[in-house]
């Protein structure tokens, strides 16, 4: 094993044009095609380049705080009669796994001589992580965020501004992540020549889904060696939440070829699958949005439907194309967790282990309780805690009551 992380080729790599089976590809206005071609060439040049990843590694170790720890959750394990390990991406600088791909993308942007970066954000974690690296590397930064998310994640909006970024509240459509991405794409088309788009998940046109998967796969690369050290064996299950799917593919990727490991991605079940939700794999169908073909929530005319989740980061009607492919190939299992189950798990992990997870990550934690007992007892289970819950405090305070101080 290399002393630091360098991506590896995957059997699920897309073809030359970015297709994972029928999914992925590049469905963008012509203006962006040369920009994507250039990015593809530039990324291929650094994909396995030691110098590039050594620079990334320097910031991971000294700035982000990697490797993130693998924590044996003793109290959860006792309660469930299993061995539960938590991959603590919540301990990263800025509080989530998003900093992994913003650091690497910013270093790439710098190499390409781009001085301006833009990003879309849902919960604000990716926006904060992008604003952070913009400050670090001296780049100009603009963040696009749905007006509804601006309201429910006001602390993150303030953090982005404090870091020196300009935040656009996007007023169109459902005023959430989908619309933020529309406006980020519009800004990118307009400023294609000098602006690097730091996409926040394994979605968008090729090469983004592959590039961000490669970058985030450091999570599973670390976790694999950490759990082998702790247990002397591979886990039975690896669980992660999915909005676009970056933390999930990040932890799954290094386990996909181990047949004895079951990878499980958890979509947002929202108010239930018969009501409003964000479960595009469970309830959607193939279609094209934001530059890629993947599963989408859409009506019979192909109009995109609004998603719903308690968690702004999962409130998205699509999903990364590689997940769509892994679902169709039966490589990864996908299930979902409702708002209520996620909120219960948010409290459960807080009070059992003293770890307050993000609402997004709470979906993955909740699945420990949703699985049938015989699937859990006696097993070694790895859960990706993709982010911390600090950003969700205001929303949580409105929904939970623990009585007054005594």
């Amino acid at each position, binding site marked *: 094993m290399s002393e630091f992380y360098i991506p590896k080729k995957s059997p699920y790599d897309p073809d030359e044009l970015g297709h994972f089976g029928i999914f992925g590809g590049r469905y*963008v*206005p*012509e203006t962006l*095609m*040369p920009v994507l071609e250039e990015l593809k060439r530039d990324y291929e040049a650094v994909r396995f380049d030691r110098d590039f990843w050594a620079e990334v590694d320097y910031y991971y170790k000294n700035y982000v705080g990697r490797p993130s720890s693998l924590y044996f959750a003793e109290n959860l394990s006792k309660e469930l009669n299993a061995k539960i390990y938590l991959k603590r991406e919540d301990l990263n600088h800025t509080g989530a796994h998003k900093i992994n791909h913003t650091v690497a993308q910013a270093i790439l942007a710098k190499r390409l001589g781009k001085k301006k970066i833009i990003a879309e954000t849902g919960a604000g974690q990716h926006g904060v992580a992008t604003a952070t690296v913009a400050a670090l590397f001296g780049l100009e930064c603009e963040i696009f965020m749905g007006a509804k998310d601006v309201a429910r994640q006001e602390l993150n909006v303030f953090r982005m501004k404090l870091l020196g970024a300009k935040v656009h509240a996007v007023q169109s459509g459902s005023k959430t992540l989908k619309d933020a991405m*529309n406006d980020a794409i519009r800004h990118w088309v*307009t*400023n294609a020549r000098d602006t690097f788009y730091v996409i926040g998940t394994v979605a968008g046109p090729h090469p983004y889904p592959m590039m961000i998967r490669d970058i985030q796969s450091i999570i599973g690369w670390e976790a694999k060696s950490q759990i082998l050290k702790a247990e002397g064996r591979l886990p039975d299950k690896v669980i992660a939440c999915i909005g676009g799917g970056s933390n999930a593919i990040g932890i799954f990727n290094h386990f996909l070829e181990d047949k004895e490991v079951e990878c499980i991605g958890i979509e947002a079940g929202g108010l239930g699958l018969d009501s409003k939700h964000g479960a595009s794999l469970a309830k959607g169908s193939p*279609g094209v949005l934001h530059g890629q073909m993947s599963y989408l929530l859409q009506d*019979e005319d192909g109009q995109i439907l609004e998603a719903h989740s308690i968690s702004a980061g999962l409130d998205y009607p699509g999903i990364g194309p590689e997940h769509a492919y892994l679902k169709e190939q039966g490589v990864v299992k996908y299930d979902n967790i409702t708002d209520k189950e996620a909120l219960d798990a948010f409290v459960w992990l807080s009070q059992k282990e003293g770890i307050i997870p993000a609402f997004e990550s709470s979906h993955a934690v909740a699945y420990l309780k949703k699985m049938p007992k015989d699937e859990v007892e006696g097993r070694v289970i790895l859960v990706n805690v993709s982010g911390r819950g600090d950003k969700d405090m205001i929303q949580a305070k409105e929904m939970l009551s623990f009585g007054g101080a005594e």
Partner: protein
Amino acid sequence: MKKLVAYITTGYPDLEFTVDLAKSLAEAGTDTLELGIPFSDPVADGPVIEKANLLSLKNGFKISQLFEVSAQIASDIDTLWMGYFNPFYHFGIDRFIEEANKSGVNGFIIPDLPFEEAKPYKAQMKEKSLALIDFIAPTDPKERISKIAKDADKFIYLVAYAGITGSGKSEELSSTISSIREFSNTPVYVGFGVNADTAKAKAKGVDGVIVGSAFVKILLDDSLSHTQKIEKISKMAKEIKEKINE
């Protein structure tokens, strides 16, 4: 004579209006009609066309209505369907091709379906005598222009600037145009940001212009009656057609 292509959003304010406007635009000298299919997430469009899309959907626009309207329009004017790829894909390209042949529509403009992804569909459409219009942008290098231009049908949609529809931007296009001419005899029409004031300048060196936001802005003007909107848009179309041919 230089050509005028007019974009209008189907179903706003209502379907009858769309038919009346199309016929009036034909009389005013419009050569080709881009009949826009409203979409929930029109990322290549600016705020004006986006608004018209969302309002039409709010009015309850359905794709089945597009087919009804098109059958009434396509006999009067060369008509193309313009829309984002997802409704075409989800509803079924085969069905769209069949309906186009049935109603006399001559082809498709799909701004988020670039050359590479378009290939299989373009061949399928060509078999049924339907064109899929290719886009060329000012960011395209010569090598890419040659690939796209060689294969282009009916006309090439030259994007006037890096950006979204209806912005005030402009870019020097002469080198892009001369690259296109090197590889293709297909007429070149320029679109994005063309209105009565800019049409003459934008038409320089090309064979036609595509006008969208300037018309849709009038479409959205609530202070005008239906008749006034149609008159105003048609008058503008006539003026633009004259200006580009001065």
